[in-house]
């Protein structure tokens, strides 16, 4: 519900908070949709992703918000379980060569370097708003091939409202473990939006058992490279890879 206290803040800020809230709610829906009976509902998740995109665009387009400090590789993670942090650290090295699918995704590195700077300071051409992702023939041929939500590509993180939590925390959000989402939701929403998502994050597989075995590989990949893990992908629900990290 809209809180009365928002009324006393400057209009631009309240609008941004509303967008922030909607983003949080949307991510929660995407997360919880994974466990529901009958599989992910394509229609609903598409609508949620559209709302997510609109809210995010609003959030990012608002001027005058403080830039995010550069994310530190090692985490911190009061809210994250240690394995994730370690996995995050492993992500830092250059994009893994799992990119065998001929994906023409731009590597996350160029965008990552822009973190913490505003748009103007980003070196290199801004990436396309949509990173076209080709799937390998194997993926494509699969019935019920994973539905991927449009990714939001950006060079820099959304400006954030004063974050009570340490800045690096959001990087952990990009890892494949969705349990982190829960802990973030549980703690504070500000941690959610202060990080710039670089691509999709891969949620754990059903039951999480498969994730345990392949977690390092998945987590080690940048979200942009998630779908390289084909054998695992084939067993996923259509929407199970469709969480867009912010």
């Amino acid at each position: 519900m809209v809180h009365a206290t928002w009324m006393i803040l400057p209009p631009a800020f309240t609008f941004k908070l509303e967008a922030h809230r909607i983003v949080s709610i949307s991510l929660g829906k995407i997360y919880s949709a994974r466990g529901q009976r009958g599989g992910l509902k394509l229609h609903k998740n598409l609508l949620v992703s559209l709302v997510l995109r609109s809210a995010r665009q609003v959030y990012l387009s608002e001027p005058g918000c403080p830039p995010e400090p550069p994310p530190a590789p090692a985490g911190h993670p009061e809210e994250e379980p240690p394995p994730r942090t370690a996995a995050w650290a492993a992500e830092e090295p250059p994009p893994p060569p799992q990119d065998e699918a001929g994906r023409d995704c731009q590597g996350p590195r160029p965008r990552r370097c822009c973190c913490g700077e505003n748009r103007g300071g980003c070196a290199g051409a801004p990436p396309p708003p949509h990173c076209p992702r080709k799937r390998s023939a194997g993926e494509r041929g699969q019935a019920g091939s994973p539905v991927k939500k449009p990714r939001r590509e950006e060079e820099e993180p959304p400006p954030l409202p004063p974050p009570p939590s340490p800045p690096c925390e959001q990087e952990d959000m990009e890892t494949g473990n969705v349990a982190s989402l829960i802990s973030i939701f549980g703690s504070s929403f500000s941690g959610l939006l202060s990080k710039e998502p670089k691509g999709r994050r891969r949620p754990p597989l059903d039951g999480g058992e498969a994730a345990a075995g392949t977690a390092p590989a998945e987590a080690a990949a940048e979200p942009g490279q998630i779908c390289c893990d084909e054998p695992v992908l084939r067993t996923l629900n259509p929407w199970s890879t469709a969480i867009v990290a912010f």
Partner: protein
Amino acid sequence: MGEDTDARKINHSFLRDHNYVTEADIISTVEFNHTGELLATGDKGGRVVIFQREPESKNEPYNQGEYNVYSTFQSHEPEFDYLKSLEIEEKINKIKWLPQQNAAHSLLSTNDKTIKLWKITERDKRPEGYNLKDEEGKLKDLSTVTSLQVPVLKPMDLMVEVTPRRIFANGHTYHVNSISVNSDCETYMSADDLRINLWHLAITDRSFNIVDIKPANMEDLTEVITASEFHPHHCNLFVYSSSKGSLRLCDMRASALCDKHSKLYEEPEDPSNRSFFSEIISSVSDVKFSHSGRYMLTRDYLTVKVWDLNMETKPVETYQVHDYLRSKLCSLYENDCIFDKFECAWNGSDSVIMTGAYNNFFRMFDRNTKRDVTLEASRESSKPRAILKPRRVCVGGKRRKDDISVDSLDFTKKILHTAWHPTENIIAIAATNNLYIFQDKVNSEMH
């Protein structure tokens, strides 16, 4: 409209005095057959219950036209797709009756993946006097058989038998949202989020894909198919609606794959109403051709619209179902109500349209007089033969007695599925796990 009504409530769950609702009992679809004699409901537990209208009799004038249970059967069971590690729900998404061609009735029922053709037959006689078997079916001792007899048919208590005649499986990767029988009575179509297939009723091992909107790259997906229906008279025409609020009329004569529409019906969005949720509320949840075939009725989250097949630029009529929710969209998004898919219905003469809303309210709009009414389907307000009282939702300003304020609406009580008798003023309203059937006794004939 609804002045003098006869209410009959049929409770599936047998938990009359409790608020607890077994999820399996939640009604998920309601459909009259072509004569209105039979009414089928499907529920989340995969069951189908068919009601039959009692013939009117002079002996019991008050019972005339009542619907009683005729048959109940389990149509779909939960399944597990091992390849994708997901459970396939047994919930019946849609039921469509086939036009009756002999003594038997047939209907199609579908869950998310599999469509089944069921044949419903009556047996009211049975043969008696077998030579080799006794009354219980046990073989007779041949030494006791001294003469031959011809078995005769003797009357028995009516037994309704339902058998699955066809199972149309493996046609859909995504969730089936609608089925529609062609006016040729030989084919039907089934639509999922991205594809529409054409089936022959007698052939189960293959179907033709006639619409495919799946993009080569799923990341480019921007809209899905939400509902589809064949034209009532032209066997080559069908319409499908999308999550973007558009309708596409397709002609199967034009090409085998109807990805290119013949007509595209779209209304430009009103920029003053733009919000984060504009896309969600413009998604069409149901589309129905009028009986005449001249118009289409669509339902999106806040409105019902009547479209003339000859005009693609905008609907000819728009009715606000519950515009007072427009300012509450964020909350409705949060509690998922914004994703509720309401259906809509025409009356037999296409003069009145009906759709459901929240708080167990349903709305009717008279296209000629432009009057509308809000009625409630609830136990408290629906004693048998009670007259339904029009309800009102007050949105601030002057509040009358018995008005409900927007904030006290119960959003868990939603009427998603409604059906109108093909020729008479009888409506079936599904309110969660309860089925309400209302009749307009004064104006029984269509006008």
